[in-house]
């Protein structure tokens, strides 16, 4: 039925349907919501996702395990190392390798924490920009460029590093990179204080965020929220402490939590998390052990380049791994890890061949969207924008 007929039919309903559609500056990606508006108040909001559905889970079923790693980079494109780590941990659990060399684990931790800081900086910039603080957007990106330079220095690529591989990491850390990380660790706390001076005690910021989009503890658990949103509602769940993986228990860091669970608390939790991540990187880079940067079992990880010229079986292993890839024994498992947005994990079913039979990403933003839309009922339209920013959804991992 044409637009006008629809309009005439719906004349008597007193709410107005507003389409906050896929192409919108503050929906953080192609996310669409149909809002029933009564004047300025949102009565109900129905989400419509799938505008960035890339069919990665279907494509992964024909790719070898090592080929899936660049795919996982593009799922949550704000912290790619975290997705690589979740994928590799699950495959290594299926392979039965539970002990990585210490250096590999430390490099993995540093890359994931740098990814977390980079992702929180993007959240801070766009969230503040949506609410109107333009300068924070420019400040946050200035530090993000430092993180991207470190990514480029070690893996050659700014964002999609694919640095964490099955059985360790891709290349060893160079002394320049270690020096770069040390410099970043020294200057970063002053920068966080700069953001705090701009926002934390800013009356406009407090009016726009305090007491808005509050999520009680039981609701947060019932709506399957995870990560900073859960911790802002008072639940102390962080998978790095709950089930330490990749030697996270070597480092001392604490989990910031707040009580009320409104947007201001989520902001405080994430700012404190950036400080804790910087703390982890400092300890990891200072105690970086030397030794192999990947597992020596050549059935899983490639042998060293220079050994190819001398030893014959290194050449055979190299050829078999490159042409055939690693064969994972049949089975299914799921390993939860702590991403910047929450619990990230891959559920992988393997049938013994070298391609995953079924690969599913447990995406924190995907599980958070129904809860987010529940938060929006009976709030102002301006708060809808603040709530989307505070839940920090990334459409790459929502639509997969």
């Amino acid at each position: 039925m044409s637009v006008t007929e629809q309009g005439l039919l719906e004349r008597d309903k007193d709410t107005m349907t507003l389409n906050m559609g896929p192409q919108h500056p503050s929906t953080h990606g192609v996310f669409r919501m149909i809002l029933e508006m009564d004047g300025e108040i949102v009565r109900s909001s129905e989400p419509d996702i799938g505008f960035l559905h890339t069919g990665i889970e279907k494509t992964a079923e024909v790719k070898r395990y090592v080929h899936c790693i660049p795919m996982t980079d593009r799922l949550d494109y704000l912290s790619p190392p975290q997705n690589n780590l979740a994928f590799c941990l699950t495959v290594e659990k299926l392979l039965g390798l539970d002990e990585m060399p210490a250096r590999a684990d430390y490099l993995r931790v540093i890359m994931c924490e740098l990814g977390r800081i980079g992702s929180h900086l993007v959240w801070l910039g766009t969230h503040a920009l949506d609410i109107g603080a333009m300068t924070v957007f420019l400040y946050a990106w200035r530090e993000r460029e430092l993180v991207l330079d470190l990514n480029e220095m070690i893996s050659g690529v700014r964002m999609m590093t694919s640095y964490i591989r099955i059985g360790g990491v891709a290349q060893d850390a160079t002394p320049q990179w270690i020096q770069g990380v040390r410099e970043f660790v020294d200057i970063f706390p002053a920068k966080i204080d700069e953001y705090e001076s701009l926002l934390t005690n800013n009356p406009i910021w407090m009016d726009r965020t305090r007491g808005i989009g509050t999520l009680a503890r039981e609701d947060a658990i019932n709506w399957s929220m995870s990560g900073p949103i859960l911790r802002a509602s008072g639940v102390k769940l962080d998978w790095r402490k709950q089930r330490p993986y990749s030697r996270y228990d070597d480092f001392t860091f604490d989990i910031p939590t707040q009580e009320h669970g409104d947007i201001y608390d989520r902001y405080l939790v994430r700012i404190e998390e950036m400080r804790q991540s910087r703390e982890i990187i400092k300890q990891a880079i200072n105690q970086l052990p030397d030794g192999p940067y990947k597992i020596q079992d050549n059935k899983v990880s490639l042998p060293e380049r220079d050994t190819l010229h001398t030893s014959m079986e290194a050449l055979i292993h190299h050829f078999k791994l490159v042409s055939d890839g690693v064969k994972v024994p049949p089975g299914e498992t799921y390993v939860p890890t702590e991403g910047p947005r929450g619990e990230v994990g891959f559920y992988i079913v393997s049938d013994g061949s070298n391609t995953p039979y079924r690969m599913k990403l447990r995406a924190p933003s995907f599980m958070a969207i129904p809860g987010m839309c529940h938060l929006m009922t009976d709030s102002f339209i301006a708060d809808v924008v603040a709530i989307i920013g505070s839940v920090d959804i990334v459409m790459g991992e929502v639509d997969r």
Partner: protein
Amino acid sequence: MTSEEIVAKCQSSLGGDLVQAEVNLGDAVIYVSPEALPKAAEWLKNDPDLRFDYLSQITGVDYLEQDREPRFEAVYELHSIDHGHSIRIRVGLDEENPTVPTVTTLWKGADFPERELFDMFGFQVTGHPNLKRLLMPEDWEGHPLLKDYPLTIEEISFSHNPDHKSELIKTKSNQE
């Protein structure tokens, strides 16, 4: 509680409905039939010393190529916030009309994953508030993640090696 204790407790009190229970790679896994799922889930959530109050994820799997008896499977991953332990429920669904009862009454976060099960695998979720396509456009036929759904790869149209190019031109001409 460790995985073994969880499995033992489930076997003792859920004995009848439990198809099988095991500890697989350190995780507690129980197999439940679709009809018994609501009761089992209710018990898992409200039992005082289990208290699985957090639904981590719901996944669909199509075991066509492994020719297992129940072709489809819905996998529920639950976690307990207070006790810190997890469990995985695997529900086997047969091939004709795979239906699974909804768990949105217990965990409101199950709304989207169950709609994705319907959209990607075609499982009917009985009792779901609004069961319609989630990721694919409304008028899309077929369920993409089924094993017999083609990946619809598009042939590459440029190629640098000569013999492949002649064959490409042949296929292109008879396409027009």
